[in-house]
């Protein structure tokens, strides 16, 4: 495989007008052109100006990633497209709610591991916990894998939110 064809993951932040259909435009662009979406999160970040921030984790060759950014930049309601992966160090965080159903040793073990991962218990019954865990995608994956044999019953993840390190804003 040449460098040109190597597939990399990129985290892209997009500022958009928070108007009807804007998410459909972004998602339609990805599905219509066959780009990957590994994760996508969106929420309003400036209520006064009605601006939302979309964080997309996508993958592709260098040329595809460049295309994705150019295609996003072309959409009329999009103000800014920024490739956090290229632009320098950044922080990525994701939150997951993980339901584990078990009793006895398994229940104790799940709690012990949750402690190591600094996951919080946000709901509990005699046979179950719901853990809340925050971290990068890798940490969440590791935690979920460890919970699998311990009665993992349900998972809900937010997808990645990301921001550049340092003083600069988007």
């Amino acid at each position, binding site marked *: 495989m040449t460098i*040109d064809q190597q597939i990399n993951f990129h985290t892209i932040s997009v500022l958009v*007008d928070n108007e*009807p*259909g804007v998410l*459909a*435009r972004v998602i*339609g662009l990805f599905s*219509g052109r066959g780009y990957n979406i590994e994760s996508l999160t969106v929420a309003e970040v400036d209520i006064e100006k009605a601006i939302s921030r979309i964080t997309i984790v996508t993958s592709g060759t260098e*040329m595809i990633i*460049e*295309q994705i950014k*150019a*295609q996003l*930049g*072309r*959409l*009329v*309601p999009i103000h800014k497209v920024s490739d956090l992966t290229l632009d320098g160090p950044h922080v990525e965080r994701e939150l997951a709610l993980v339901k584990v159903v078990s009793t006895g040793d398994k229940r104790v073990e799940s709690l012990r591991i949750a402690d190591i991962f600094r996951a919080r218990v946000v709901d509990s019954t005699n046979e179950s916990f719901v853990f809340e865990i925050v971290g990068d995608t890798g940490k969440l994956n590791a935690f979920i894998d460890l919970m699998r044999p311990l009665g993992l019953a349900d998972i809900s993840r937010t997808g990645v939110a990301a921001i550049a390190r340092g003083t600069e804003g988007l």
Partner: protein
Amino acid sequence: MSTTKISGAEIILKALADQGVEVVFGYPGGAVLPIYDAIFNQNQIRHILVRQEGGAVHAAEGYARSTGKVGVVLVTSGPGATNAVTGLTDALMDSIPIVCLTGQVPTHLIGNDAFQECDTTGITRPCTKHNYLVKDVKDLSKVMHEAFHVARSGRPGPVVIDLPKDVCMALENYTPKEEIELKKYQPRLKPDADRIEEAVELIAGAKKPVFYCGGGVINSGPEASRLLTEFVRETGYPCTLTLMGLGAYPASDKQFLGMLGMHGTYEANMTMHGCDVMVCVGARFDDRITGRLDAFAPGAKKIHIDIDPSSINKNVKVDIPIVGDVAHVLKDLMKVWKDKKCKPDAKALDKWWAQIADWRAIDSLKFDQSGDIIKPQYVLQRLGELIKGRDSYITTEVGQHQMWAAQYLGFDEPNRWMTSGGLGTMGYGLPAAMGVQIAHPQSLVVDVSGEASFLMNMQELSTISQYRLPVKCLILNNFYMGMVRQWQELLHGSRYSESYMESLPDFVKLADTFGMTGLRTTKPGEVDDVLKEMIETDGPVIADIQVDPAENCFPMIPSGAAHNEMLLGPDDKAEKPVSEEGMVLV
């Protein structure tokens, strides 16, 4: 802002007038009745009633491409909007500025599967540059003006405004164009100065250069074509044009190599293949142009000038990308070229032109009109001769006739040639010719057509008749979907599956029913007479020219082949079978 409240429909018409719109192509229906009422009550804007909404969009495209203005369409909700989808996609692919107003059910019924409701913004999202659903009449003035701004600036394209009926009837103040702030969409026009320096250096040092230019030059405006011509002549370099770019550089100029691409000339494609510096101006390395990508211009350093950053490095990685408007970029290139007193490498250039002369000598567009069957190429060659120096516009349908028209009609000016390039929409040419004729009532407008394409939108003959548009329909009637037949011959063992046109109408009688002049010939000796009569007739004409049904369009780069693997003619094809990978390509 004016202080008297008017209806949404009246706001729409005021905004259209404010935007300088003179003509709207449309078709009424329940959801747009308030707008039609407002049209009835004014006489500033002319409405042209088409016979199917698809025709309205193509007519607006013809109008837009031949004038450089925004074409405007008005259709009703549901089927009116869905019928417009092909035209919108066509305009998106070919970067034609269109504003399409679609009626919609009243806001309180949206989402209810109401009568003639469809999710117009959902359906048209991928086939427009942008679209709007106006839910509040307060937003209407702004959306109208913004839509025109989006349609015409940057890389132009179609914009849909979906208009619920209650919004068109609600009362509000009108805000004129000047009072609307358009900060949203501001594409970059001026190029980066460093890139210009680098580009000039590369261009000046070229030994085997070529200019490869496309529809972006035409979209940038006539000044861009003028600057291109000036710059190409200044360098003395060869220039080739895409299907969409024809007319951007004068075809009669000695530096012009003809069209490039799948049915381009041998010299154009070989020059592309062998060049060391390629200057791509307002073209997009489409698959019809590049042929097999990994064999495309292997030794070339490439400069790409485009207003749309997403066109750059999409198919072909380039060395110097320049984002900006073609006219702006050419002006800057020219200035730096002159300031630096650049001179091309005369010795290398002579050698390059000598090589090109050898390729030209192959005469890849030659054909043999010695028999007693009319060759389609002959008809177009004669048409080209007979309209030379005349104020004329050509539209085409899609198929072999389209490629022959591109090969044999020379265009010396921009905006004279309208064809469906990106989408390849059969049925485009007739309504497009209508739109062109509306914009240029005194000019000669010819739709070069195939008999199959003609049947795709021939309901518009009724529109042509109603408005007495003197459009000339030149049908190169080969009794086949010729281009399909050609691919079946070359790629599918001559199994002509469903490509024969049965039960064609008698085109002369058809002309008669619409009050047009009908002409027909089957003899080469009569071609000139028929063409002359067609050109000289005051009103609309259908000329049914029955041509060789077996003729194929050459040269041809078969799918999956490279520029230097062209088929030059029928004898060539046996030696160069199409690859398996090529077969799956379109």
